[in-house]
């Protein structure tokens, strides 16, 4: 690890100006950044610790629910407002990492964790995301873990966060402290497709500090399920995951929110599935037809073609589980 300076910040005010220097990086829980530093992938020269900055915890507002960026994942899972009003978020977080990591990792850091693409995490190989212009060995190499949606010839890395998938389904916003004021960005717009600049991953500008995540009121109090399929029963990133929330009235689906993880270069909303749900009777046939639309537009490679049927089945199961939950309300 290369030498760096370390400083703990007490307030969000002025942070973005302090951090707006090449080589200066925020650290919160440290659980992804320290992996990258240990592996020689990131080498910051100055760390600004923001783990005690801003309002932590969960707040119910009139217009929605706000989660402070420095709140630890475990504290969000245990929060009574989240348990009652954002069950999809609680379930996605409970399926993330390990209990120890959930006690350390923060909401802000979780949304900015780097991809698990094998080549990105191995400095001895080329990778356009890590070393712009060096190539993308995943295209023709080991791509079992890579994306089937949103890729480009330059990068097909998936976004690894489970939380982000649940939040994209709920139309959440990221609240950012930027020199000159506060800004709110829809999470779906926050993440960038790789295109020919796979190293540009988000809408953040140098120095930007995430202070909170906000879920609008219309996306709260919905029955929903997060289903995660992985190589082992627990403590593993998703091969495929499905986040589902439904509004049902008089046996008809009135609103549907569906997103998938493990399959896209960013958390992947599935509007084709939603379209096949809304206005239809809530029955087995509707759910199955809708789930099949999850495959629309998939662009698999030999190593990850299995993800397409896996996704359809995961969406079908998550829809059925949500329907059960709705029926038992």
């Amino acid at each position, binding site marked *: 690890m290369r030498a*760096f300076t370390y400083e703990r910040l007490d307030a969000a005010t002025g942070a973005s100006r302090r951090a707006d220097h090449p080589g200066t990086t925020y650290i919160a829980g*440290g659980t992804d950044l*320290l992996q990258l530093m*240990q592996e020689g992938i990131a080498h910051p020269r100055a760390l600004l610790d923001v783990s005690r900055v801003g309002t932590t915890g969960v707040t119910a507002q009139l217009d929605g629910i706000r989660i402070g960026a420095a709140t630890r994942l475990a504290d969000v899972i245990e929060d009574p407002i989240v348990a009652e009003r954002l069950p999809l978020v609680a379930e996605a977080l409970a399926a993330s*990492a*390990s*209990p*120890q990591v959930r006690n350390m990792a923060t909401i802000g850091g979780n949304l900015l964790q780097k991809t698990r693409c094998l080549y990105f995490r191995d400095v001895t190989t080329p990778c356009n995301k890590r070393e712009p212009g060096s190539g993308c060995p995943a295209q023709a190499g080991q791509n079992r873990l890579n994306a089937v949606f949103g890729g480009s010839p330059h990068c097909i890395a998936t976004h690894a966060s489970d939380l982000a998938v649940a939040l994209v389904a709920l139309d959440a916003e990221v609240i950012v402290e930027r020199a000159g004021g506060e800004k709110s960005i829809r999470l779906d717009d926050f993440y960038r497709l790789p295109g020919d600049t796979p190293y540009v991953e988000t809408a953040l500008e140098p120095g930007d500090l995430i202070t909170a995540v906000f879920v609008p009121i219309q996306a709260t109090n919905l029955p929903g399920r997060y289903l995660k399929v992985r190589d082992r029963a627990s403590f593993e990133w998703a091969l495929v995951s499905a986040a589902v929330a439904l509004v049902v009235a008089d046996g008809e689906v009135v609103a549907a929110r569906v997103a998938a993880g493990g399959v896209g270069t960013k958390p992947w909303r599935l509007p084709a599935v939603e379209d096949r749900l809304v206005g239809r009777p809530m029955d087995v046939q509707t759910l199955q037809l809708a789930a099949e639309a999850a495959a629309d537009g998939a662009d698999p490679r030999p190593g990850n073609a299995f993800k397409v049927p896996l996704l359809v089945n995961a969406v079908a199961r998550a829809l059925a589980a949500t329907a059960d939950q709705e029926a038992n309300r």
Partner: protein
Amino acid sequence: MPNDPHALTVTLRVNGEETRFDVDPRTTLLDALRDRLHLTGTKKGCGLGQCGACTVHLDGRRIVSCLTLAVMADGASVTTIEGLGTPDALHPMQEAFVACDAFQCGYCTPGQIMSAVALLQEGHCGSDEEIREHMSGNLCRCGAYANIVDAIRTVAGATDRSGAAVPSREDA
């Protein structure tokens, strides 16, 4: 590191005793505990948060000490396996691990026990399934999993949900 211009002073309360030392900011909490404070009960497996061998309690919560810097823990309380019990006065969880034969080589054991004690306090030991899920951050290459669950179940049955009946040396 007396001549290191980047060195920072860290104050930690480790197993009930306050200690102050200078560290290079690159030092993980794990390395500080082992190399600076000579508390070698906490083990280093992967160094990447994936095995749980380095589990300690930071301000009463279990964490992996390989993924946090010593400077990030400045001002905090740390409990390591050395702070849980002594060879002649084992913590009930240590006793249960011995009684249930819950290890083979023993390398993962300090981390398993630190996690298991935290699990009692978290109240996630209602069933074997729940115990397994909430112990998933601790891997055992020797595959002592079944006996580890036995040990935890034994202690969980003997204590209340808050873990209040489990004394630690700090309370004594």
